[in-house]
């Protein structure tokens, strides 16, 4: 073998080896930096400073910051974190760089306002973000809807929620639910049906997968809550009619009060306790439920939305 051939052969082998080795090492480095890298993304917290530094390429930088925001929330949520302190500044920078990035405002409305571990527990900041979004995109009905959503679900400020929904209902292409929601705020705020309408609107109108998953999880929880309330009512009715409580839910079927023993959204039958209460068998599988929880039950630090991915399919 000539000297040149030998060098070519050796250099090719080394090239392949070092390429593979560097990729494998980088994978290892990435594993070590998962937590650290996310904290590093925000040493410049001022949206104005970031815009100046973008040298006119704010659109591209907005996309970068938007990706960081989604990743930040996703990774934090995945590791059951309770602190989402960078989410608000990341979204504020993103929307300052690109004020027409509506999905970023929507993401903020959905995940800035709920209390940890569902979100960062900053409803006021979420309102500020969405209000900024409305100023930049006055015809986006979804932003008015998001605003009403925060007022209704997080702050329980029904007049403000009604105003936001009715303003949104006047925008072109607005979801027909908005008019009904505006009216409902005045009449029956706090009902399961109203909450269901809100989450259905979110599920139908959101383009972001994480927002959709969150809405699907809440809809399942509402379904479960409603089932528990109805079953408990039937148990009481059974007791009034027969003078004794039912031994199991099958008794309600035999008494023609139920067609079948109902299953919870996770596919398990509800449990009837000796004191006539209805419990969910495994509450960890149905995040956000408020009814049918066993006494002393503590929810997991963060709901496992991955389990509910099938809700989208």
């Amino acid at each position: 073998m000539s000297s040149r051939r030998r060098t070519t052969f050796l250099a090719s082998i080394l090239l392949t080896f070092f390429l593979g080795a560097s990729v494998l090492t980088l994978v290892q480095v990435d594993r070590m930096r998962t937590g650290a890298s996310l904290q590093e993304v925000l040493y410049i917290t001022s949206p104005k400073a970031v815009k100046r530094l973008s040298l006119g390429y704010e659109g591209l930088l907005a996309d970068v910051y938007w990706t960081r925001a989604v990743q930040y929330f996703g990774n934090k949520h995945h590791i059951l974190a309770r602190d989402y302190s960078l989410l608000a500044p990341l979204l504020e920078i993103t929307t300052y760089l690109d004020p027409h990035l509506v999905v970023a405002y929507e993401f903020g409305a959905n995940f800035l306002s709920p209390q940890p571990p569902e979100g960062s527990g900053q409803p006021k900041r979420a309102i500020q973000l969405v209000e900024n979004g409305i100023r930049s995109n006055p015809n986006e009905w979804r932003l008015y809807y998001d605003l009403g959503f925060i007022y209704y679900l997080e702050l329980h400020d029904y007049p403000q929620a009604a105003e936001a929904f009715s303003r949104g209902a006047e925008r072109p292409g607005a979801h027909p639910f908005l008019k009904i929601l505006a009216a409902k705020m005045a009449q029956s705020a706090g009902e399961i049906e109203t909450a269901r309408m809100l989450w259905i609107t979110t599920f139908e109108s959101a383009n972001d997968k994480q927002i959709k998953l969150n809405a699907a999880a809440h809809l399942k929880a509402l379904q479960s809550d409603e089932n528990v309330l109805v079953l408990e009512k039937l148990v009481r009715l059974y007791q009034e009619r027969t003078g004794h409580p039912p031994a199991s839910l099958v008794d309600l079927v035999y008494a023609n009060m139920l067609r079948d023993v109902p299953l919870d959204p996770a596919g398990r039958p509800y449990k009837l306790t000796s004191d006539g209460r209805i419990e969910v068998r495994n509450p960890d599988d149905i995040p956000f439920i408020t009814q049918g929880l066993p006494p002393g039950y503590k929810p997991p630090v963060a709901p496992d939305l991955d389990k509910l991915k099938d809700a989208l399919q």
Partner: protein
Amino acid sequence: MNSRIRHIASNTFREAVRDRVLYNLVAFALLLVGAAILVGQISIDIEHLVVINLGLTAVSLFGMVIAIFVGIGLVSKEIEKKTLYTVLSRPVRRWEFIVGKFFGLAGTLVVNTFFMAIGVFAALLYVSHHLHAPDAWVLIAVYFIVLQFLMITALALLFSSFSSPLLSAVFAFSLFVIGTFAEDLRGFAALTSGMARWVATGLAYLIPNFSALNIIGSVAHGQPVPGHLILYNSIYALFYAAMALSGAVLIFEHRNLK
């Protein structure tokens, strides 16, 4: 290292040190460190932070400029001046020439970085009157910057082994910018699916990941750097530089120099 590589490396080092542009860049970097002190004084309570951020950024940027612009000329200059033919007519192999050039420029950059780092520490001392224990992490940040220089030097050599100096500079600088956003590229990949995801992830791992080696922000806040991260980052940078150097050798070995 064999004696021929050593000779080429020491000649490259000497040539680079004689280059006036190099001194200008170092002087400019030191001036910027001085500016950091001024900026630090008007930044209430964050003088220390500003000096580290601005100082290390200056070291990194000017080092990159030196690595790219000297690196791309290493082969083309020799061809232009016809000195390459004299070197290769002696018992020097082409791969020894490339490897020698790499070590020569790497040595130059290490020496330059050393002086620029002294400037940063002098500025820190001036601002804080004494050095704190967490300032030792700044040394690790400087070490990571040197690792970045090794990677970009090898890449500049790779490009100059088959392309014109201007194009090589464009390629190397573009890779530097893309590599700085390597983690964001991976973030984009995570948001896509199917074929696009595979392509974006593959690209993200193929390009040099400079963001993994950029710890300026965290050391400015006195955050410690884990030992295993130092180890793995060192291995990664050395592997990547060796990969680019192997590519340069492979291409240069078959290049028609007539």
